[in-house]
């Protein structure tokens, strides 16, 4: 007789396996376009290739933090109503924040390498660099708060409020640092404005953004499932512990 798969403990489904395969192919193609097909820049030289990872990474990080904030708001709205307190929103917020932090880290690392080649230094007290590092540390704090042992609902509410405040704070930090000083070049791609780059570079950058989005989605889905499994593990461990204590009491009686 065929065994029924234990779907509760699975971290992958056919759909996410396909998504993973698509992500892998997308990244390989991105490497090919970025390193081989796309030409070197007249001014920046080979360093321009760093931007094919740098620019999509910060877009994904911003998107992930927006997702964290919306999920947190939904969690707060549902936490007093539903029987499970809308914990899936909390899981989604946590997984998106983790992916956001990873991509903010990639943005900082590639930006510093690019700065070394272009500006001659790894770090400048430029507005966008300073804002990004503050964003990075803010969400590292968010993840630190998530990792602390506490009742899941209490912790969920605290981290949800933190996510909302952090989100509101992002433009304040951005503009305050922007007034302070700015050196960073204008955004290469932005909505409603003619792009700063054209031709193969433009299409490579657009394609890289798509490829990195697929990778980030795959990571968020898997991270969500791992968080759910961690919760199941904790709940089952607690139930087993209670059962063993009850058994001890029965033996003593």
């Amino acid at each position, binding site marked *: 007789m065929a065994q029924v798969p234990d779907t509760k403990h699975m971290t992958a489904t056919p759909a996410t396996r396909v998504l993973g395969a698509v992500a892998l192919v997308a990244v390989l193609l991105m490497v090919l376009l970025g390193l081989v097909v796309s030409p070197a820049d007249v001014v920046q030289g080979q360093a321009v290739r760093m931007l094919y990872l740098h620019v999509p990474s910060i877009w994904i990080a911003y998107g992930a933090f927006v997702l964290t904030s919306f999920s947190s708001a939904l969690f*707060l709205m549902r*936490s007093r109503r539903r029987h499970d307190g809308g914990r899936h929103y909390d899981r989604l917020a946590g997984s998106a924040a983790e992916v956001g932090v990873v991509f903010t880290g990639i943005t900082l690392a590639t930006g510093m390498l690019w700065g070394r080649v272009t500006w001659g230094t790894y770090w400048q007290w430029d507005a966008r660099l300073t804002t990004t590092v503050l964003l990075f540390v803010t969400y*590292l704090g968010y993840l630190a708060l998530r990792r602390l042992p506490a009742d899941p609902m209490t912790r969920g509410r605290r981290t949800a409020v933190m996510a909302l*405040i952090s989100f509101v704070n992002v433009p*304040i*930090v951005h503009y305050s640092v922007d007034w302070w000083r700015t050196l960073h070049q204008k955004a290469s791609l932005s909505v409603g404005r003619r792009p700063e780059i054209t031709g193969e570079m433009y299409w490579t950058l657009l394609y890289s953004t798509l490829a990195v989005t697929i990778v980030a989605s795959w990571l968020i889905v898997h991270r969500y499932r791992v968080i759910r499994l961690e919760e199941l593990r904790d709940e089952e461990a607690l139930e087993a512990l209670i059962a063993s204590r009850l058994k001890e009491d029965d033996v003593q009686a």
Partner: protein
Amino acid sequence: MLREALLIARKDLRVEWRSKVTLGHVAPLALLILVVFAFAFDANARLLELGAGGLYWVAVLFGGTLLIQRAFDVETEDGNFDAFRMSAIGTPSLFLGKSLGVFLQVVLLELVLVPGVVLLYNVRIENWVLLLAAAVGGTWAFSVCGVLWGAMAAGLRVRATLLPLLLVPVLAPVLLAGSRAFETALGVRADAGWTWTSLMFVIAAVHTAIGLGTFGFLLEEG
């Protein structure tokens, strides 16, 4: 709501008056920080004069963080938040009251720090009105942010290390704006001191609104 907030603030100030922690421990530590900065700058009078505004706000940040930590320790050690939840006091009042209590304690700290900066760093106050407005706006922004994050870290075993990690990135614009406004007030730089002061009031207003709306969630258990 205001009456309840004043009750909470008065309670916190009474605890402080009896323990004398702000004046006895935190203010001397903050003054010591001003002295240590002189070591870092090799007692270069010109550098200290230029950086006086920023160094003042860093000392406020260090001292203020300790005060916020303490404002929540006195509540969590005896389970006071459970008592607040069972009382008729609303969470917005509690938030305002705690913020007011922290604000007045940080003002006390600043009353020691301002003369400290003037004497140790040899600066002159050129614009008293700007200095006062910046101090009030910055301190209220610091207090409401501090109370929000303090509630988040309250009761956790690692709160002493977690609170500064959570608080400093959020307070970065306040530190920046406070430093620039103070530098203008001290005549060190001819900058838009009032613009920076306005920014601090905006930050204070935004975080007060968030705190009034969300403080209840931070106190809920289970």
